[in-house]
């Protein structure tokens, strides 16, 4: 053990003495799951390069990055031929971000990870390590110390709307007092409470549910913290005989009020919307009807009866 320690220390000292640049890598332990999104963000990682007191401080470098799984299997390495040349600030610190360190045009992924990345834009959920150093621009010479950080990747499953069941009909007398909304939790469930916004939009005549969602002011826009249920007292009147249609969704936010966008690329963090209806059975059909959630209409046991609307 003693020999190993001494050898390791010696290697570190030799490397440090050879190094011309000192780098310090800070990595978000849970960055966004889409690797290609890293380039546009400053919250994924920061690499700070500072000059060491050497005479031959380099003007230009290439960033050599390796991504491995937690158990050390290679995920991606930088192709140094393709790696862009980066200039260092003379006499000062140089800051690099994810766009420079994990340059998608220069990273070569191993086949299985590349396949996953091409299909999903993401790597399989799990723990990874990132290893970074600076190399010279022409020869494979290490110019800095090596920094390793561990991070966890996981995409987010937005809540699924449970209740009211999609396309359901709620009796008017019941619904005008209270409507209970339930949805599944965000997965993976963050340790901090998730802020959900329950939003209900009225679907007006001549509108589709999606049109209503995209054009109307919500009748309900209620924040719910931590729990996945909300009892709404609509305070609406369903005095007319027609079926009143609504579309609802849940928007997820973290505890800093930032939208959790999930995997739906519209960036709104809204779960897939569902509809529900409020009304009463048509009295002239003498009860021989059942509400179909599929067509959101009445179906009749007697085929001679037709939807009254």
């Amino acid at each position, binding site marked *: 053990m003693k020999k190993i320690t001494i050898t390791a220390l010696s290697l570190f000292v030799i490397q440090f003495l050879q190094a011309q640049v000192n780098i310090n890598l800070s990595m978000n332990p849970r960055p966004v799951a889409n690797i290609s999104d890293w380039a546009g963000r400053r919250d994924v990682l920061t690499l700070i390069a500072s000059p060491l007191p050497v005479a031959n401080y380099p003007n230009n470098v290439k960033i050599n990055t390796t991504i491995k799984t937690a158990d050390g299997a290679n995920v991606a390495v930088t192709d140094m031929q393709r790696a862009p040349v980066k200039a260092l600030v003379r006499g000062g610190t140089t800051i690099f971000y994810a766009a420079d360190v994990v340059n998608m045009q220069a990273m070569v992924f191993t086949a299985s990870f590349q396949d996953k990345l091409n299909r999903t834009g993401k790597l399989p959920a799990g723990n990874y390590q990132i290893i970074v150093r600076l190399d010279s621009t022409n020869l494979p010479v290490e110019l800095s110390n090596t920094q390793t950080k561990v991070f966890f990747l*996981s995409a987010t499953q937005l809540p699924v709307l449970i209740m009211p069941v999609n396309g359901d009909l709620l009796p008017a007398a019941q619904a005008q007092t209270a409507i209970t909304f339930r949805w599944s939790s965000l997965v993976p469930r963050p340790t901090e409470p998730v802020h959900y916004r329950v939003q209900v939009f009225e679907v007006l005549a001549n509108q589709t549910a999606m049109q209503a969602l*995209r054009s109307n002011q919500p009748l309900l826009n209620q924040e719910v913290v931590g729990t996945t*249920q909300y009892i709404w007292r609509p*305070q609406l009147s369903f005095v007319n005989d027609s079926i009143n249609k609504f579309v609802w969704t849940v928007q997820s936010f973290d505890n800093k009020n930032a939208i959790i966008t999930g995997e739906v690329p519209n960036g709104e963090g809204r779960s897939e919307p569902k509809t529900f209806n409020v009304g009463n059975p048509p009295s002239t059909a003498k*009860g021989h009807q059942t509400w179909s959630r599929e067509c959101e209409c009445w179906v009749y046991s007697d085929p001679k009866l037709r939807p009254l609307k």
Partner: protein
Amino acid sequence: MKKYFITILILTSISLSAQAQSPVSISGTLGISYEGYGLTVNPNTPVFYPPRRPWNQVRFNIAPKITIGGLSLPFNFNFAAIPTNFSGGSGGLGALGSQNFGQFITNPMNNFSLNPKYKWAELQLGTQYLNYSELSTGDIGVFGVGFDLKPKGWILKFFTGTSQQGINASTSPLVPGAYKRSNWMAQFGREKEGRYKMAFTVVKGRDKFNSVTTPLTVNPQEGVVFSLINNAYFNKGWYLELEGAHSIFTTNTNSGPPGVGGASSLKPFITAYSSTKKDYAVTTAIGKKSTNFDIGFKMKYLGAGFITMGYPYQQPDRLDLTLNTRFNAWKDKNKNYKMNVIASIGNRVNNMSNTAGNRANQFLGNLNWFTQFNDRWSLNVSYNNFGFNTNGISGGFASIKNVSNDLGLNPTYTWSNDKMNHMLSMSYNYSKYKETVTPPPYTTPVTTNNNTHTALLTYVPTYFTKKITPDFSMLYFYNQTPVINVQLFTLSCGLGVPMAKDKINMRGQLQYTLGKTGSFSSNNNLIASLNIDYAITKKLKWSMFMTTNYFKYGNELGVPLVGANYLESTLRTGITYQFK
């Protein structure tokens, strides 16, 4: 904005008057409606109840259909004066309060379409919500031009246009902004009604990066979907529907070229970038449909990278399996069925790609069972079961298990004498919701029970000699959680009165709710509403709906809002002309 409305109205009027001189027939409707909203809150600050409707809104519905021989010209000009967009690409336009002409035309709250049709040829002009297939496009409106041709069983469709205009981002009011999005879609195939359908579909959308002048928080995107539909319909109502689709989607067209081994371009349809992903989706349905018996199995798989601009809220990375049925049984003496049943069971698996923590399994079971025992008794039973399970404890995340059971019983008893008919309907619902969260190290599950009881009694007398139609109902609602209990008690009555030889139908309702939350003092809610429909002539109808809602809190909002109250009123009125 006024000039747009006036121009449109004038153009429509000219079109109608010109057509009226020809031997043409006109059907459809013309209508205008107004909605006014009022809200008085006490105290004014702090804000405890924000307005939930626009203060004023005028909506126009100009939908005449002109028929000249075999040519039909259906107009659909359906638009509103004030933008109220809250979500989606136009979200925030409502807060900005103004929109330019392009934004007005493509605003999802407005439709301007004209679809001239002659035999098998249809020209599509203006806003179209085209549903090509379940995996390609169906949810978005595009303003543009296209056609739908069906000569001798062939299908040939094409449409191109703009689904949204560029909208600059703003921090106050908060407007996320949107890039101008151009879309085109095409479908080619063969179809024989009731026998088969085969169609190949391409749907493309692309954001124009320089369509905005302020940076947006969203990225410009581009995507194309190729889909193949094969549907077959057999004797005795059996069917098989199959659709497979492949999407190529770029989440950021500024992300630079793809890296080594990255997604490749498919020109001329799409150029690949480093954020481009390619994935598949499949949906299939097999079953039988008939008058008294339906059964069907449906499978839908959406890969994690399968994205189509035609369904912007579709959640990818999932497998849905559903088995549903509907049947009628038990005939009465008139050979009408007394019983009908609709039921389904389903399972959904999220995170099929294993890129989002644990896989989540969902089970969903529904049953609705209606029986008319005799002329007097009927019973409706409904049952919903929902289960959600993140299956395990890996990844260092909390394990989540939810189970929701809802049972509803709704017997109805009807009896009559020589003067009137009585209907007494009782309804009881029990909803049991149990959530179990087990955080690491997975030794101490935390279970939350959330149970709700709802009982409703409704009485509806119907007079044989009088035209008034009263109704009365009473409801008790009790929700029990470990934190707080909510109780609501509602009394409601309504009265319908026809007047002026049934030309006027008036219906009013009064509803009072007493609410109690935990140990807080009670809150009170009174809602009064009135609906009037007046047939001025056979073709001209006027309708009006008014409702007033008064709510007074107890002490649940705390100081300084003890006893806070609000009065909220809505008026909707409109006039509709029916051509035929």
